[in-house]
């Protein structure tokens, strides 16, 4: 393909791309992994025990923030923090949420891989912030 061929190509108009993006989002939002994550997210929000465990874990993290930043946790502090983390992760609604999120991630990765094949650039890496 040379620069001369650009004028002969039928380029996608912004409206066509926008419509395709809207259709893609609508189909994705109707899939089982997406609705499962929404439901799991709502259950987690309504789960008082899970919310309590999350707050306790966050409070412990905050209380240890200074030593965490210095990477200077004692073995006892490390064990205590891990206990709060495991208690939080053991809540059934948290486990269900993480499973649902993993399911949606797998599907989004498969879709993004296909998009990347078309555009010749890594769609997910291009679009996500906070890269290494």
């Amino acid at each position, binding site marked *: 393909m040379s620069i001369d061929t650009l004028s002969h190509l039928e380029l996608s108009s912004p409206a066509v791309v926008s419509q395709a*993006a809207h259709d893609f989002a609508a189909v994705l939002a109707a899939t089982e992994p997406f609705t499962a994550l929404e439901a799991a997210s709502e259950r987690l929000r309504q789960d008082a025990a899970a919310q309590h465990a999350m707050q306790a874990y966050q409070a412990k993290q905050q209380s240890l923030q200074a030593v965490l930043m210095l990477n200077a946790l004692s073995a006892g502090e490390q064990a205590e923090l891990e206990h709060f983390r495991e208690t939080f992760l053991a809540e059934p609604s948290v486990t269900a949420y993480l499973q649902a999120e993993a399911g949606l991630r797998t599907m989004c990765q498969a879709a993004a891989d*296909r998009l990347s094949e*078309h555009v*010749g650039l890594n769609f997910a890496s*291009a*679009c996500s912030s906070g890269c290494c």
Partner: protein
Amino acid sequence: MEDLILTPDMVTATESLGVALRLAEPVVLYHLARETLEASPEATALLKCLSETQAAVRTRQTRGEVTPEDMARLRALQRKVQSNPVIRQYAQTQQAALGYLREVNREISELLGMDFGALAKKPGCC
């Protein structure tokens, strides 16, 4: 494997979006610039030389053997690469295409209420 993960509706919607993106002007311009780059012996030789020099300097750095001459040579090569019009065009169109993909992702993510690109990112891939 991918087809087992994606429903037929998802495959259709993803293919339609992929084709639309492939023919969007920023992406087409990026591919044209890439083809021009790959067809330019001077540009490809410069990039190869820069890559080899960077690797050599890194190796010498780990041994503590980098000299001011090494760094001067590397900087001169970097300036040459940056001023090559074919490479500049490639870099500019690549940035424009990436920015365009981010815009499309933003549109998708707004509709979903969650960041599609972040969900799609594989751990450790940069």
